[in-house]
């Protein structure tokens, strides 16, 4: 299918999310759309998939203008979409998820389980995507869930264009490698692919053409051979540095000591299973791992939001496991939560109120239980200047800020009182390249002043950029502690619970796909030019 967008524009009131977008996807081509959060990528895809109606402009499929009134029309026209947030009904089986909306029936609306199962197996065999049609989706690993999404998208009456919206955000390196292979073979089979991403390495690895969008406008058309810096600069609109300058760490006394930490989850699974970890003053320990292996519970247990079932936590040599979160903060614990909206900010409060949330009870912000608004405003103004928070003023509600600036508010708050230990969980999630750069440099500064930093991140790039030591978490246990120059494939193997030495052949196989930047031996005939594009900036 040849897809062409002409002058596509979407306005929400006075705000223009997409402005006059022109874009052409040729048959069998992988077309990457790069852009920061809020650049208008998702709005564009929602228009393509019939979820939103364009304000003006047109969509042409094989040179015929089309108008979609809903996703059903887009599916009928041959467009399949894999959404960033999976659209899978958790308690349903794979077959039921795939057949939803186009059910296999035996007449009179009675479902035919056999036909549905057969259809899933047909598609999965045709494209080499192994799936068990009877598995319940919520029990599947994220990578397999994504495979279900792809099979679902390919199961339309005639899917010729596949839209993948940020498909790698939740995947392990090995799963990313698999996905990129799948994309290549689909494209070879003639399917056009629109690949939305902000991960530059992946775009370089698979794309045939790259379109960069900034603030709703197409700002550049690049070849995949363009360098990462070039792409990042086009996305952000100014020069950015992708590497973090830092000196070797000078670790001191342990500032966080965790031993035997065990947390039993609701379903009786040990989400943390006798975890041991030490973070010393003046070093950044990067905790790598696939999401859902206990990182969330670890961070929350260190702050004191969940009570561990066994094990001890000590901050600066003193046990804190019976202390409340407020007492731990008092002891010098800083905490950047992974879910900003839930744990980081009170959206309805002003920027100023959010900035003093961890010390509003102390002088000079409160005297005798009465808040001193002037002192709070002064502090907020200082922080806004220091952390370059883009807001119309301290009295704006936190909800009016962009994600990156909201994160800066959290960081300003955590950095505004003396601390000995900082737990930073996914500190740059949903934050654009520019703000990421800033947050990274602040974390390094923090380390250099002698704070112990525990960096929990699902982005290996971030771990490599910052960590002085890397611990890998898997199934609630630390399965390895390695140096910062350990090759990616070793960590990739640890992240999925395989032996680090690669003794097993299966582990060796998955390592081959884990390192997707290198030419995968499984797909030697791909048309991409990834090997020469990436040779320069590997970490090993």
């Amino acid at each position, binding site marked *: 299918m040849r897809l062409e967008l002409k002058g596509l524009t979407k306005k929400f009131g006075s705000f223009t999310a997409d402005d006059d977008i022109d874009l052409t996807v040729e048959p069998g081509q992988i077309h990457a759309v790069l852009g920061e959060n809020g650049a208008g990528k998702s709005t564009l895809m*929602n228009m393509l*998939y019939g*979820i*939103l109606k364009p304000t003006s402009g047109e969509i042409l499929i094989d040179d015929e203008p089309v108008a979609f009134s*809903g*996703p*059903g029309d887009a*599916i009928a026209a041959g467009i399949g*979409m894999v*959404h960033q*947030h999976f*659209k*899978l*009904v*958790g*308690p*349903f089986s794979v077959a*039921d*998820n795939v*057949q*939803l*909306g*186009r*059910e296999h*029936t035996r007449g009179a*609306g*009675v*479902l035919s389980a056999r036909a549905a199962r057969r259809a899933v197996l047909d598609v999965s065999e045709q494209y*080499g*995507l*192994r799936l068990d049609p009877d598995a319940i989706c919520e029990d599947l*690993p994220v*990578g*397999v869930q994504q*495979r279900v999404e792809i099979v*679902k998208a390919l199961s339309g009456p005639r899917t010729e264009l596949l839209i993948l919206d940020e498909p790698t955000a939740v995947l*392990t390196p*090995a*799963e990313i490698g*698999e996905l990129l*292979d*799948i994309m290549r073979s689909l494209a070879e089979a003639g399917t056009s692919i629109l690949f939305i991403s902000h991960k530059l390495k992946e775009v370089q690895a698979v794309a045939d053409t790259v379109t960069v969008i900034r603030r709703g406008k197409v700002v550049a058309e690049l070849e995949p051979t363009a360098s990462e810096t070039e792409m990042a600069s086009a996305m952000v609109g100014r020069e950015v540095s992708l590497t973090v300058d830092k000196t070797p760490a000078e670790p001191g006394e342990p500032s966080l000591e965790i031993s035997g930490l065990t947390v*039993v989850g609701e379903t*009786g*699974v*040990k*989400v943390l*299973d006798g975890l041991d970890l030490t973070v010393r003053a003046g070093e950044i320990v990067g905790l790598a791992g*696939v999401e859902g292996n206990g990182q969330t519970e670890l961070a929350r247990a260190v702050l004191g939001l969940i009570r561990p079932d066994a094990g001890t936590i000590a901050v600066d040599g003193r046990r804190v496991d019976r202390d409340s979160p407020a007492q731990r903060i008092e002891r010098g614990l800083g905490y950047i939560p992974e879910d900003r909206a839930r744990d980081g900010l009170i959206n309805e409060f002003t920027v100023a109120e959010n900035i003093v949330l961890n010390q509003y009870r102390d002088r000079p912000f409160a005297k005798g239980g009465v808040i001193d608004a002037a002192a709070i405003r002064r502090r907020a103004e200082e922080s806004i200047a220091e952390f370059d928070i883009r807001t119309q003023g301290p009295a704006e509600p936190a909800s009016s800020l962009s994600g990156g600036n909201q994160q800066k508010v959290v960081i300003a708050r955590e950095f505004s009182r003396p601390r000995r230990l900082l737990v930073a969980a996914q500190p740059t999630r949903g934050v654009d390249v520019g703000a990421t750069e800033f947050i990274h440099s602040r974390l390094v500064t923090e380390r250099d002043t002698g704070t112990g930093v525990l960096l929990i991140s699902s982005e290996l790039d971030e771990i490599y950029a910052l960590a002085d030591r890397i611990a890998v978490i898997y*199934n*609630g246990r630390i399965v390895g502690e390695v140096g910062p120059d350990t090759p990616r494939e070793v960590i990739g193997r640890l992240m*999925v*619970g*395989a032996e680090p030495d690669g003794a097993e052949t*299966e582990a060796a*196989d*998955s390592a081959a*796909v884990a390192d997707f930047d290198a030419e995968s031996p*499984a797909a030697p005939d791909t048309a991409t030019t990834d090997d020469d594009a990436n040779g320069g900036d590997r970490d090993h």
Partner: protein
Amino acid sequence: MATDTQATAPAHVDERAVVRHLKAGIVYAAIGVLLAAGALAFLGGDRETVFTLDRTLTDASWTLPTLPTVIAMAAVVAACGAWMLLGLRRGLFKLASAIAVAAIVFALISWSVSEPGMVFRAESILAGAVFLSLPFIFGALSGVVCERSGVINIGIEGQFLMGAFTGVLVANITGNVYAGMLGAMLAGALTTMLLAMLSTKYQVNQVVVGVILNLLALGFTSFMYDQLKKTEGYNSAYGVPSNALDGIGLGFLADIPLVGPVLFAQNIFVYVGLVAVFVVWFLLFRTRWGLRTRSVGEHPAAADSMGVAVNRLRFWNVTAAGLVSGFGGAFFTLANSLAFTKNMTAGLGFVALAVMIVGRWNPLGVLAGALIFGFASQMAEYLDVAGNSIVPGPFLQMLPYVVTLVVVAGLIGRAKAPAADGVPYNPGDK
């Protein structure tokens, strides 16, 4: 490619590990001891509990000496408690609780029907239990259809009232009790249509709407009752033949001991109710409509992305659910051959909601839950009518509600509602 990436499964807490349950163990052990002590103190050694099949084999009866029976049951309860205190395998805790609860129930029944001159009329009581479970069945089925579609329907009580009232009114006007049933269904559907429109088109908080609809139905039916009282012939009792299917082949089935009177010699409402349970189950889990309905209640955005019109489906499902709860309303008047009175549903619509949760949003579970509540109601009524029980009558009226609490808190634990239950859907939401 396509290698599964889970190399080893996460560590589960061992199902076979021995765990102590201090609180539950102490409670059950204490109940067992109290039961035995109470029996020794208040039960004469000559008391007997008689069980009979009162409708088919009128001369069959079984007699148990009450005191030893109660003490044996008390021993079972205390043993379960001790087992929990000493520690038992995780998977066996529910079994131990169920045994203990069953033993308590059996002990209390034995005790309470041991008064001189009383017998446990097994067939009458069980048949009555099935009959009294009907409002719970209809109400909870309506709730299941709504909540599986993602709309909370706490207005079942109101739909009952509208159905009860309209059923009698239409039966009086047309002179046909079956027309009355249809009228009750339509009244229920019109009531839920309001909920459906407010919760899909206007995305109003569904709990608030449900509460208001209950009050509206109460006020409206009470007002109309007062108005119609002034004229004859609008609110006379109308009933269905109590053995409606007699003469079309169930006659000999009705003579089977125990099963016959309970299943084959019942009011037409009972048959409609039992069939409805299986029909709703089949529709929900075996048809296209059911798949779409469940997807809309679990993950409306997923359904929308596959071309299912979420709000339209919700609207019609909630409206259709009103047919069921409206019919359940007709139970109060037509099935019981009663005229309408103010607030005659007495909160059973809310109990039906509890039954829906006990039944875990599944029609078959609803049937099981409804039978438990029907049995509790029937026992309360039976002991109350018998008059000389150890517990005063008004106190017995609480029995079904106490059972609600015990069952929900003790045996069911946390039940998981459909994920999008009560959440309005806006196209474009994540």
